[in-house]
């Protein structure tokens, strides 16, 4: 049985998610609100469900890695992008998507796919702590960090789950661009 969550406590957790602007853990919410970790967990589940059901709001609450974040629904993100500049160029996002899918991956293999710009991309992505390079025997292997799912608001953290997610997103992307193409005509 799910225990009833008081409106007041729910609003407190909601206000923390709103104010943070970045993914926060159950523990952090617990510290800020004085609620127990278990209670916070229950409230978060309920809030996510409620936001998902609300048709008339532009925001959503999602699990991002092991944390939770309030963000603009993807459908509205583009129109408000003017107000908040994106940090990563589409080129950088492509490189990151390659790494995310093929991780752990050798830098030389990436270079073969996307050329010399890879070196610069790897530097920027490392400095943003989205990827890390680790020595594996004689080779530098590139992998994602745990910030990756947090940064992009993914509910998955395992490499194979991230792969599945990317495959699906790419497919949706293609369907979407097909749709856009035909609308333009």
């Amino acid at each position: 049985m799910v225990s009833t969550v008081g409106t007041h406590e729910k609003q407190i957790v909601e206000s923390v998610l709103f104010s943070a602007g970045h993914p926060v853990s159950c523990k952090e919410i617990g510290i800020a609100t004085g609620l127990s970790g278990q209670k916070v967990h229950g409230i978060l589940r309920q809030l996510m469900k409620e936001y998902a059901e609300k048709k008339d709001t532009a925001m959503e609450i999602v699990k991002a890695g092991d944390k939770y974040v309030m963000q603009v629904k993807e459908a509205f993100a583009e129109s408000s992008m003017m107000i908040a500049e994106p940090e990563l160029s589409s080129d950088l996002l492509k490189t990151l998507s390659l790494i995310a899918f093929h991780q752990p991956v050798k830098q030389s293999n990436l270079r073969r796919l996307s050329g010399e710009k890879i070196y610069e991309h790897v530097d920027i992505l490392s400095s943003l702590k989205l990827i890390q390079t680790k020595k594996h025997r004689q080779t530098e292997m590139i992998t994602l960090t745990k910030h990756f799912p947090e940064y992009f608001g993914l509910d998955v953290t395992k490499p194979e789950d991230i792969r599945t997610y990317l495959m699906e997103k790419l497919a949706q992307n293609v369907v979407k661009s097909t749709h856009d193409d035909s609308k333009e005509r």
Partner: protein
Amino acid sequence: MDSILVDNEVIHHLLFHKSLIDDYNDASRITYYVDLLEKTHEGNHVNMQDPFDRSIAIAFELVMQQHLNPWDIDLVSFSTMYLKRAREERIDLITAGRIIHMAWMVLKLQSDDLVVTLQHEQQPDDQLEWSDLDTSMWLSSEDEYSYTNLLLNLPDPPIGEPLRRQSKRKVTLIELLDAFDEARKESLLFQQMEQARKEARERLIVASRKRMIGTAHEDNLEADIDLVWDKINSFPSDQMSLSDLCDIKDKEELIRTLVSLLFLAYEQKVKVFQRQFPYGKIFIKTLGCT
């Protein structure tokens, strides 16, 4: 007429591969393709219900319409054309990715088996193409191939930055006070460390001067350093060139001055530098500590 010709070529191509393949599944798949191809030729693909069938049909149709040589498909241009068609036909693009992969497998079969049989010689191409990729290390599965190919051919990446709240808050007074408390402790520690470093430096200077004892310059070294230091301090500006301090044509004086400067630099009383290395003018700048 042309299209029938190519059509037969494609069928021959598939049948040829069928004869090369031992694996039952692959062989039956090719038989299936031949059936499909015939339907395609009859223009039936539009009515096909299964998206996978439909997409294969489109692939074959494309090969025929574009008069591509099935023995020599340029996979890069094929993929590009195919994706365009797939978009127009609104087929599931994951399936499309798989089709491209299959085409690539066919191509791989060609290169693996036929290069030897047909003694088909290829000049190495400078431009890197899909078929040149070393796939033994990676891109070894269908999904990897499809994903990578789609990603590189499509304009948009599969991930985008979510839009979140720009929430920078002001620092509170309490935080400033805490910072002050910490800064105080840290700067005490920093000063203690600096003092320790300074003492270590002085010990080193004494030691290094001692090492000079017994050399030809032993008697004059301390006096030389003091002399050069006096000259530097009496100069009207805090920056000067080496020629301001000595007659650089007098080799002995030049060396005496340079050695003294190196000691002064070591003691962090001056900075010695060149703007152009290695033949540029040598400059000296006092570091403001006496």
